[in-house]
């Protein structure tokens, strides 16, 4: 039945190459921990992606309860944390996932760096990877404000001060992020929410796609 359905679609759209290009390739011995245990260092990139998927899924569920305005943001998080079934688990996954994704990404970066895997022809993929790193830090920074508790508000104030100290464009960057020259308030929260939930994920998806396409195109770097 499923086969027939597949054949029916394949006959019309030729979908076989789509998934074969992604899935049908050999994993070389030197990156396979089943053959060399030390090859576990090659897992960090995949782990980063895995935690990113967890972040996307848990984040989607969090937005079912979260309200991005200064009167209700904290209340909605408190409610989610203490009243909603499994709310504590979902929020906990998003909270710890944020740290884990950075740890895994950092280890992945170190692996690629120390192995010199960024060398020709993989320079572009390295640049895309570092941009992903920046986007992840941006997601961490904007997400930290959203619960609208004390540490969120004051850490964001410090972060905005740092952004403001940029020469020439500092004050514009701050207004763009905070929505006001001095007040960190209702505007800031909605902007950070929009950046955290729409802008940065959109950029992230584009960069991730480029990252993976380049890996498939170039193959994984060889043994040292």
């Amino acid at each position: 039945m499923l086969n027939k359905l597949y054949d029916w679609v394949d006959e019309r759209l030729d979908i076989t190459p789509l998934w074969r290009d992604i899935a049908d390739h050999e994993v070389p011995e030197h990156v396979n921990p089943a053959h060399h245990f030390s090859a576990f260092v090659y897992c960090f990139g995949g782990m980063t992606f895995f935690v990113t998927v967890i972040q996307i899924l848990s984040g989607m569920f969090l937005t079912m309860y979260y309200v991005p305005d200064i009167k209700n943001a904290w209340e909605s998080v408190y409610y989610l944390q203490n009243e909603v079934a499994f709310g504590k688990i979902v929020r906990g996954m998003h909270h710890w996932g944020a740290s884990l994704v950075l740890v895994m990404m950092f280890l992945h970066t170190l692996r690629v760096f120390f192995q010199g895997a960024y060398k020709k022809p993989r320079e572009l993929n390295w640049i895309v990877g570092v941009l992903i790193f920046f986007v992840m830090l941006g997601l961490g920074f904007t997400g930290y404000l959203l619960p609208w508790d004390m540490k969120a508000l004051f850490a964001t104030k410090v972060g905005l001060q740092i952004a403001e100290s940029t020469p020439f464009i500092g004050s514009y960057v701050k207004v763009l992020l905070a929505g006001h020259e001095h007040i960190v308030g209702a505007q800031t929260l909605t902007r950070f929410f929009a950046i955290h939930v729409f802008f940065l994920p959109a950029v992230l998806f584009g960069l991730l796609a480029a990252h993976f396409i380049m890996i498939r195109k170039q193959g994984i770097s060889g043994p040292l």
Partner: protein
Amino acid sequence: MHRGKGLKFVGDSRILAPEAREKKLPKDYSEYPGKTEAFWPNFLLKEWMVGAVFLVGILCLTVAHPAPLERIADPTDTSYIPLPDWYFLFLYQLLKYSYASGPYTVIGAIIIPGLVFGGLLLAPFIDRGPERRPSKRPLATGFMLLALAAITFLTWQSVATHDWAAAERQGKIVEKVDIDKTSEGYQIAKANTCITCHGDSLQGGPAAPALTKTGLSADEIAKIAKNGFKTMPAGVFKGSDEELKKLSEFISGLGK
């Protein structure tokens, strides 16, 4: 597989035989010697299992350590000591040093991080040689180890100098206890400067705990008011014994 003008792969796993290099075409995976494994479904299944174990680990973590939530943001509280999430601590600490703060903020906030992250971004164009082993690239390896040491040191400094007990106190969610500010007990507390540290609703502050829901008896409160406790000095209370009795009964009864 045809590949355009023929990219040259440095140390690519698929280039082994000289004849393959002559043709400037990477070998097909099927011709690759050694124990390769099909990604789909064999290798992916193993990855899936590792992922499942990892997921269980995360779930255990969320149950053992729920995500923290401090009290609702209060922009008027100027005594709050801010702290970013742990992965920004190194930057936060850097900005505390005298040549990276104040009039030099631009050095600590923009120039130094800009150089570090700019160097990271442009690493393939700075470290251009064909060598890949860390030992054959002493500059690249050295700078990365230096950056790692700096980040570790700054993060550690930040953690070591932060007052974690005060941080926990200042962020705690305190249930509001209605306090009758016209009561005699509150007036005595006010007269004896209790509220300077413990807050005008006795909700606590960065240097002192809340006086609501203490769970202490009136006698214990009286003793602390006279003799001090931990960082609270002795002799803060200067009233009569009768006032002390009223005060301690008032505080002991808050939020009971």
